[in-house]
């Protein structure tokens, strides 16, 4: 990839998988409130964090994202009542598993952001971007990259 050629100019590419009802609206609020946050995320809107199959995360790492952020409604606030609880169980297994095989823990992150937390959304994105910037371009589990 062009972006990874020159380490100095490298910008992390992060996939933000946001639930339609809370985090996506939170991102929208951050936007309309003109809160500044790093432009490194690409947003993927899903109906619910429970829709996120761990496979989505594995595939996005394989296809060249340097990090993945999944964000949904706070526990108890799910539009579908229990989607985020189910998601939490999946992530509770996925995250340690990825760390176990040697993927840097910073690459895959989870957060809860509500529709009213525009400020918080900006904070989360800033934090995730900075952390991924620190660990550098993804090399593990990336197709076509020898690691």
């Amino acid at each position, binding site marked *: 990839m062009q972006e990874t050629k020159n380490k100095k100019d490298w910008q992390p590419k992060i996939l933000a998988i946001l639930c339609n009802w809370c985090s996506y609206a939170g991102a929208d609020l951050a936007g309309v409130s003109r809160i500044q946050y790093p432009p490194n995320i690409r947003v993927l809107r899903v109906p619910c964090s429970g829709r996120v199959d761990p496979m989505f995360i594995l595939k996005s790492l*394989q296809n060249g994202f340097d990090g993945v952020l999944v964000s949904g409604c706070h*526990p108890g606030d799910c539009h579908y009542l229990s989607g985020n609880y189910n998601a939490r*169980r999946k*992530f509770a*297994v996925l995250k340690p*598993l990825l760390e*176990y*095989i*040697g993927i840097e823990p910073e690459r895959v992150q989870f957060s809860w952001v509500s529709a009213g937390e525009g400020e918080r959304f900006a904070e989360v994105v800033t934090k995730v971007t900075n952390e991924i910037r620190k660990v550098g371009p993804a090399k593990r589990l990336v*197709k076509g990259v020898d690691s």
Partner: protein
Amino acid sequence: MIKALREEVRRLFEEKKVDLVIGWGKGSLPMTATPVFIHKAEDVEQLIWDETCSNNLAVYLTKDKRQLVQTNQKIGIVVKGCDGRSLVLYAVENQIKRENLVIIGVPCNGVIDKKKVLKQTEGKEVLSARFEKERMVVEGRGFKTEITKSDMLSRSCIHCNHPNAPVYDIFIGEPINTDSDVAVYPDVEAFEKLDCETRWKDMVESYSQCIRCYACRNVCPSCYCTECFVDQNDPQWIGKSPEITDTLIFHLNRNLHVAGRCVECGACERACPADIDLLRLNRKISKEILERFNFTAGLDIDEKPALASFCENEKQDFIMG
């Protein structure tokens, strides 16, 4: 023991309590056992039970093309601890009706991994094997060796703490006592202590041996989807060639699909032609699920699998504060 097993099965047929009994019979090669399907009392002499009976027979209730569950009213099945746990899993997931099964438990001290024995004989063909208490005597053309049996155990048996089926109707012999039925994971803990780089290198090294034959999936009692994600081509999740990232993602995702459902019978790694330690990821997941949700797959018929249930106030330390 074998005699008691045969008598018990004969009695089941005579009392018309079963239409079919699935058990192990003597294999055509040394150190192997083959599944046998017994339909009448005369055939019970085929049954055996020893440390070569490694197949998880539960798998015949879900994946067999003959659809044994649909075509037989009552099925008797001989099970070790892990196979018995698979049956519990099937009952939880509504794949079988508990009342249509006659579960015959046998006490298991672990099964032999034939690949380990072949390593011991440096690849030389074994023509006969005899089991004594703690040892096994292996003979072939021009050699005869004695091996300690516990060194030849399948990797899944080393840390096993469920040697008896958790649910059974008949038990042959005495159930084996275990010090504790809480699983231990010294192997996983040791690997966790290594640094990130080493762990990744090790994973790549071991999984790059994978030729993607999917034997692990085919033999797995918990993998019974009618269409597996690797066979789907729209969307195509996994590339067809054995490329390392595709291979790793296949194994990761397969392990995630059996998360909280894997009974660690080790069928996958005994089937693996590349001799990959396939259970390492399963065991990591089992450990995580036990620690977080206090759940072990296949022990309780009334408990939902860990990833099919949730608790509102559980630990969420992995989520950004």
